[in-house]
């Protein structure tokens, strides 16, 4: 493998990893605050894709408007899901909430199967995201340049909200002790809804970028990216947004290099991503950026 190919594979890895990271941030955000592994996150991402698809291909909106509307609509859907499915279980055991999340996941998948059918739809890719740039033989698809930038911008925005605003402070406080925060007069349900809104907004964003890179969408498309993003979030230290982004990059790059260096093993690359996760957890059970869980989060 010469240096051009090596560099090319690194670019491929970063671009794939930034997609995982983008989805993983939303995952970890919800976990950090209410300790719920939201298994429906991948499906919320799928919903974001279909909303954007509907906007562009069926309502003929300009792509940026359709994308923005889709993200807002998906955020509202996230809030709705929280209010209807998770809120009644706020004081139930954690396993009940987890199983409910799986139920929500099945519900969304099947709802979209009924509405849109099982045949994959072609996601319309705006010209801006379609091309590629060739620098000394290394190809940079436009989308591969834009995705990491978007991932980092939204990560910074999220960190800003968490650390510099009152709502963020409430979110961080919630992650320590929900009851005390409630006693302090914070509207806990409103803050949790916000968390779900932001998480779903980010899932839709990740979904749209996913769909622009792999423009075949079907109602079951969220499952695998959802699992990978979950692995990324755990690898980075679940509950830490920076860790989630980092975990995404690591898994993306690792996957690409498994395929690049050992082509016959490419059929098992998902297994490698999860094996890698298991190994890291053996040595560092809280993940790379996972701090002492009693002290700080995000």
């Amino acid at each position: 493998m010469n240096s051009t190919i090596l560099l090319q594979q690194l670019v491929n890895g970063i671009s794939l990893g930034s997609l995982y990271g983008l989805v993983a941030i939303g995952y970890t955000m919800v976990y950090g605050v209410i300790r719920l592994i939201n298994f429906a996150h991948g499906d919320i991402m799928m919903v974001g894709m279909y909303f954007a698809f509907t906007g562009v291909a069926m309502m003929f909106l300009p792509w940026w408007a359709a994308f923005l509307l889709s993200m807002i609509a998906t955020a509202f859907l996230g809030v709705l899901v929280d209010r209807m499915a998770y809120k009644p279980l706020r004081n139930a055991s954690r396993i009940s909430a987890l199983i409910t999340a799986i139920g929500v996941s099945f519900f969304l998948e099947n709802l979209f199967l009924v509405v849109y059918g099982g045949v994959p739809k072609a996601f319309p890719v705006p010209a801006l995201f379609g091309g590629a740039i060739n620098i000394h033989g290394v190809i940079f698809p436009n989308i591969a340049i834009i995705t990491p930038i978007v991932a980092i911008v939204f990560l910074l925005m999220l960190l800003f909200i968490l650390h510099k605003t009152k709502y963020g402070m409430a979110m961080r406080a919630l992650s320590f002790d929900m009851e005390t925060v409630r006693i302090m007069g914070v509207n806990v349900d409103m803050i949790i809804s916000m968390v779900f809104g932001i998480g779903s907004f980010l899932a839709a964003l990740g979904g749209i970028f996913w769909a622009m890179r792999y423009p075949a969408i079907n109602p079951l498309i969220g499952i695998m990216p959802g699992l990978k993003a979950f692995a990324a979030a755990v690898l980075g230290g679940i509950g830490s947004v920076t860790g989630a982004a980092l975990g995404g990059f690591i898994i993306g790059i690792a996957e690409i290099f498994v395929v690049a260096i050992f082509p016959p093993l490419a059929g098992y690359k998902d297994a490698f991503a999860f094996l890698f996760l298991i190994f890291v957890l053996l040595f560092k059970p809280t993940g790379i950026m996972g701090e002492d869980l009693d002290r700080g989060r995000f």
Partner: protein
Amino acid sequence: MKRFLHILAVAVVSFMFLSSSSFAKEVKVGVVWPMTGLVAAFGQSAWKGAKVAQSMEPKAKDGSNIHLILLDNKGMKVQTANAVSKLITEDHVKAVIGAITSSNTMAGAPIAERNKTPMLTSSATNPLVTKGKKYVSRVCFIDPFQGLVAAKYVWNTLHAKTAAVMIERDQDYSVGLAHAFIKAYKKLGGKIVSTNFFQSTDQDYSAQISTIKSKNPQVIYMPSYYQEISLFARQARQYGLNQVIMAGDGAEAEALLKIGGKAVNGVTFTTHFDPHAAATPLAKKFLKLYYKKYKGQPDAMAALGADAYFVLVHAINEAGGHKATPQKINYYIRHTKDFKGVTGVITIDPKTGNAIKSAVVRKVENGKFVYVTTVNP
């Protein structure tokens, strides 16, 4: 009141029993096709074809209705096995049509075999599907032939001396067809410069594309399904990998054109059927009715779905209509000879259960499938 309800319930139940056993004579046939999931387009196409076929021949010769019971296998192995099991043990079907892909059919086949119920697949082309089985048959050709046709086309028509192969590791269809192609292509004198693998749920092929590009083959052989091929083609063109992509019958679906867009222009594949090469009277009638119902041309999956139905009904007729046992139906499926179906003349080898048929080469031109040539076995 309670007593009255009791009597009513008994009356309703007994009426249902009577009506199902003696009033309407019918032959139950199970259908296991993917209506959702990764290969949903195939199942939906095949079902369209089978519906049109059923409207042409809704009854067996003895006047009993052919009752199709459709179950969705989601394109997955476990669901296929469950569906075949349910159809045979709960619905007591006389025969099962399905599944579409080789891996799925292989998951359901042992159950049909164990229950001595015929299973007829419309489009599973891997040789292992029927191997060692007495009750599993098919109306399509098998992959060693398909691979040979592809290799000859690449060598003789495209004049390509080097090829790269993309294999979908967890699909028996892809693995089998790739090996058939590689064997035939090497025999002709061709050279495989790069062998790459991926799996069904993959959407990112950038690593494989970068590797293939560095080996610079003249053609890329990717025996896979429409979604994988269209995503691969899009990414390949983005990375400046512009060689012809050659594929198998799994490429043929409208979704390939829609998802692939401009990137799939030039994609060439071996398949079972082309409306323009339809020769038999049955095919012409089928095309007309299909157009009337769906305002379009049937693809290979639809034509094969119809053929599976026609061949099965023919066997049911020979076996004696609604009184026929599954074993007897199976005997006549296996002894199908010179049946003039939609996709051509079908003869099933009684020993192997495989059909011997000609193959068609089609390609994508300006966002449409066009006919290239027909190759006889």
